[in-house]
């Protein structure tokens, strides 16, 4: 596969390490009353769709960026690639 890196352009996916569902960015609040349940769901349950999937790829043999790749799990087509850091910030993550 080819991943269109936002900074580096097309790169062979073999350069990347895959981690899966981009919801792993949304780490729950440990101080919440429902934290135990939240962390279980965060850690273990997945939509696992047959279709479009936002997922995390690490450019291990490249610039060491984590990317959020929107990819179709049926066709492998990729429609969007973003820097995970930007996505994390846009979802309200900070320090």
């Amino acid at each position, binding site marked *: 596969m080819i991943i269109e890196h936002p900074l580096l352009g097309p790169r062979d996916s073999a350069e990347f390490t895959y981690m899966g569902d981009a919801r792993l960015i949304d780490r729950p609040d440990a101080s919440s009353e429902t*934290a135990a349940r939240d962390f279980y769901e965060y850690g273990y349950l997945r939509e696992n769709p047959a279709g479009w999937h936002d997922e995390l790829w690490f450019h291990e043999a490249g610039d060491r960026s984590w990317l959020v790749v929107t990819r179709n799990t049926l066709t492998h087509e990729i429609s969007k690639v973003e820097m995970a850091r930007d996505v994390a910030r846009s979802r309200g993550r900070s320090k």
Partner: protein
Amino acid sequence: MSQVNRLSGGQIDTGQTLQFKFDGKSFTGHTGDTLASALLANGVRLMGRSFKYHRPRGALTAGSEEPNALVELRSGARQEPNTRATTTELFDGLLANSQNKLGSLKFDLLSINDRFSNFLSAGFYYKTFMWPAAFWEKVYEPIIRNAAGLGSLSLQDDPDVYDKGFLHCDLLIIGAGPAGLAAALTAGRAGADVILADEDFRMGGRLNSETFALGDHSGADWADATVAELAALPNVRLMARTTVIGAFDHGIYGAVERVSDHLPTPEANKPRQILWRIYTKRTVLAAGAIERPIAFENNDRPGIMLGSALRTYANRFAVAADKRVAIFTNNDDGHRTAADLHARGVKIAAVVDVRPDAPRSTDYEVLHGEVVNTKGRLGLTFAEVRLGDGSTRTLECGALGMSGGWNPNVHMTCHQRGRPTWNNDIAAFVPGGELPPGMSVAGAANGDLSTAGALTGGVAATTAALKELGFKTKKHTLPQTEDAPVNLTPYWYVEGCKRAWLDQQNDVTVKDVQLSHQEGFRSVEHLKRYTTLGMATDQGKTSNMGGLAIMAELAGKTIPEVGTTIFRPPYTPTAIGVLAGRHTGQDFHPKRLTPSHKWATEQGAVFVEVGNWLRAQWFPRAGETTWRQSVDREVLATRKSVGVCDVTTLGKIDVQGADAAAFLNKVYCNGFAKLAVGKTRYGLMLREDGIAMDDGTAGRLAEDHFVVTTTTANALPVYRHMEFVRQCLFPDMDVQLISTTEAWAQYAVAGPNSRKLLEKIVDQDISNDAFPFMACMNTTVCGGLRARLFRISFSGELAYEIAVPTAYGDALMRKIIEAGAEFDVTPYGTEALGVMRIEKGHAAGNELNGTTTALNLGMGRMVSKAKDSIGSKLSEREGLNTADALAQVGIKPIDPNDPVPAGAHLMKADGPVDAAHDQGYATSACFSPNLGHAIAIGFLKDGANRMGEKMRLVSPLTGVDVNVEIVSAHFIDPEGERLRA
């Protein structure tokens, strides 16, 4: 007599005569021949035996779709089984042997199977061989296994090498027939970066096999001229002998270039083949079409082949398959074969056409009818024809061409989601469904079966593809050429036959398909799997359609209603060697060498693989005959005086930034915010699921600068994890990470005399007051070389780790040895390191096995409740905190002579020994030269509360069952006085 069937002309060089041997017999051929064409030229039709019935077989085709003419090519370690004689380029000295036979090719004892074919019908083996049960492995299966298989491997290591490579282009054109050449011309002239790949050693495809002209040229001449023009274009890369094997995601194609297969052996240092990974923006598939056989009684005898193959042998290779040839056809193409052969002086016994309105000829007889049977034990002698009026005729012939129509070569269009669709005009499947993105199809592969159609199709597909890429193509005039319409009556098999072959290699007949239907195996996939139709080395290129058509007829459906068969990569079978490339033997993985590697080699160190690292395992000395002697000596010497060990392999990560401490507070379960500058702390890192991930130390060199160490094995995963935490979880933390594992040569100097030794090397005061336990600093050594010093200990002794830039690592090691001579400094390897850490009860890889928690490791209290760190929440789950949770313990034998092996399980002293009563297991074990007996550490249920308990340690696998006592894992200096000294 040599080359009795050689004609004149063709695209072979009769000036170059080549010697070759088949089954020990010598023959001659010419440059430009294939093994099959040369054998046919010499009158040899019998080339192999079929898989199941061991029927005599000759070449069915003249290309890579060949199911029958498979040989063992070359000899010795280069023996290559199942090699298609039809694509094997002849070279001087070529050696080939027939395969899959017991006895000689002519008298194959296993042809007895053919006599019993009635008992060996499709799927017969599923219904028998069940009794007695033990007989399967002992009796039935060995017989079946030895009879099955095709050719043999030599079982010697492949002596050749293979390369891999990477190419980038705008347009990849697969196939250099008329469509591919026209495509390449269009793209080449437009300035696009083009790769034109063809599996054949001669470009031109069918143009080399046909007699019709393109403009004023013969097809072959036009192909030559076109190839010459393309070769002159710098933007075009011509790749003959190159098979594109698969269309992978996003325009990545695999291709195998056979660099040396046409040579007796590859040139020195050159690869036999190259696997190219081609990155292309667009692809034009111009892979042509493959002719279909017709199924009739005994249609598998040597001499019976595709009509188009007869034409290829005659026109391209100047070979008549035999002096007398008959044709069996359902379309006009069969007549073209007859005309071409006739023109070359081959006697046409007759053309048998199933169509009553078949074209007539003045040159040879055309019969309306069907071939219903053939004769000839090892090669065709007669064909029996049932005429339209019901009468029969027997034709004397040594070759028979079958023309059942053409199947577009849709193989590569199916590699992703494409499913071919039915085209009634040519009664064949054509590319359909979703083609691999960026691919278009041209020429015969797309169902345009005329030469003119191929040319215009090639140009049109290329023009459209290049337009998308922003290239402007120029119009060029195409030569006038053959543009005959397809005139065909679908016809698949002759009714009423007893055995009519569909899949010639796997011996699947029309009857087998009928039986499959009768037994309910009616979907295409069931048919294939039950009968093995299409599962042979040709993957059904010549057989699938026939099976499908018969199944459709039996089911009372149309062919597309029954389904289609799709193809999977590779396009043709591909050497496993080329897919591995250079990554064989010692080059399987890179080696990582430590800075003291050269020095350690000089010392005669024994090395061990640790991931990709090679580490000194121990340093044998004269007189030591076992590894234990060396290791014991190294341990004792270190604990007595001082030892040195290369620990460069530990992962090192530089963590800097204003939020560096806050960041480490997140990734370690214990606290780091308050660590003072100049101090080091042990850190335990959890995965988010609460399980221990890695441990190491972090030294604070400055308020905003830490140096983190990881275990050797986890350097990369920990770095990746830390980047995830940094970029995805806490994107606004000011923290920067970079690996420095290889930037520093780092040595552990351990033992009571380590300070004295290092005082001779380090330029600063390192007294216990100035540089106490767990201190760290930037410093200099040997009069000014920048260095880092950590007072940390894995051995449990007074110990330091000292680091200098890698380029000085070799020199520093030599300096340490020199400076330590007065203390008898002893270099130690990973074994001694392991012994000392087990003696101290330090957890390592065997304990951090991905299932253990901080609690299990005896560090439950380290998980800070005061902060949220990765893994802290999920580590609180009930299942990880049961009263009898495993806890790390020490294990010592009651009888000091007993072993306590790692991997053995702990059982209660008086309880049963079985899985249900398992209490725990030993993780790491060694002989402790300090204690004089074996020791182990391990995990025991509720271990912390079972100190002193007598238990059994059992390893039925290795025959160990010993009595042990549970003790603290800190066997040596439990109070830690030595390391603080």
